[in-house]
């Protein structure tokens, strides 16, 4: 194989569930570099590094980095302008 193969953002759910209460793979994210808005499940995830690197499928810039050590985790979302997370509808009290 000449180029590193990548996985889909689907696989981020497990690693990110350690940090978040919701499934971020179904969240929508905006790439800070090119502005593309799409599902985080659509990111190209490179898992060959000491951590996980999620890249925008349109411009291939880095949107997310996650590194897990035994006693801590680093999450770098510089490349993500926003995350839009589906939430249960709030009913008025």
């Amino acid at each position: 194989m000449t180029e590193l193969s990548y996985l889909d953002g689907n696989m981020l759910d497990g690693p990110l569930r350690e940090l978040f209460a919701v499934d971020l793979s179904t969240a929508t994210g905006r790439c800070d570099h090119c502005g593309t808005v799409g599902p985080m499940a659509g990111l190209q995830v490179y898992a060959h590094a000491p951590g996980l690197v999620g890249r925008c499928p349109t411009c291939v810039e880095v949107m997310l980095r996650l590194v897990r050590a035994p006693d801590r985790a680093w999450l770098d979302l510089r490349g993500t302008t926003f995350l839009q997370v589906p939430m249960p509808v709030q009913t008025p009290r």
Partner: protein
Amino acid sequence: MVAQTPARAPARWRVGRLVERRVETPNAQTLVLELPDWPGHLPGQHVDVRLTAPDGYQAARSYSVAGPAVDGPGGPRIELTVQRVPDGEVSPYLIDVYREGDPVEVRGPLGGWFVWRPQETAPVLLVAGGSGVVPLMAMIRARRAAGSRVPFRLLYSVRTPADVIYADELRRRARDDLGLDVAYVYTREAPDGWRGEPHRIGLADVNNHGWPPDLEPLCYVCGPTGFVETAADLLVGLGHQTRRVKTERFGPTG
């Protein structure tokens, strides 16, 4: 209204045990795991499986769940189908060493994107490359279990006829599950009497065995990265909307 999902427990590792093993092909086996407090899952979801060596070294891999959970005497059971990745860290262990009764850690269910919900009404096209058939089989099994009449088509690319995972069940379901069509692409060796030469998936395969884009089907593509790239590009090229083509790639590690 909120999409119905099974209650989501925190992402903790649960301890499961192997209760049964089935040989699917020379390189793929189905592992039936008993998970006493399993909360249920949706077709297409995956789990992370973690192994710990005596020296504390840990390795985790993602595996798709192959069908709906079933109740056993010791609690819910889920099935994972594992394809052997030569030189992999986890898959050779699960296939060759892991024994009935042995514990394993499981985290999930995971992933709410690459799922099919039985209340969906759009026709479905499933495109599988190799062991990418596993989450798609979960959808086929869930469709029948839910009594759904949504038309399903499976286009399944394999190297040779001997590499077809779930071969008998697919033959039976193609006959008995009304509204399910199954077609194959053989890349190295086709069965006797097969029309045409072995080839990699191409436009004609997707065109002949898929749905026209006007029907706005849901397309699920799962397989190795290169296969998924090709198949998803073909679908989008035929006019399917990108957001209706859901993909799940698996990498070279196992």
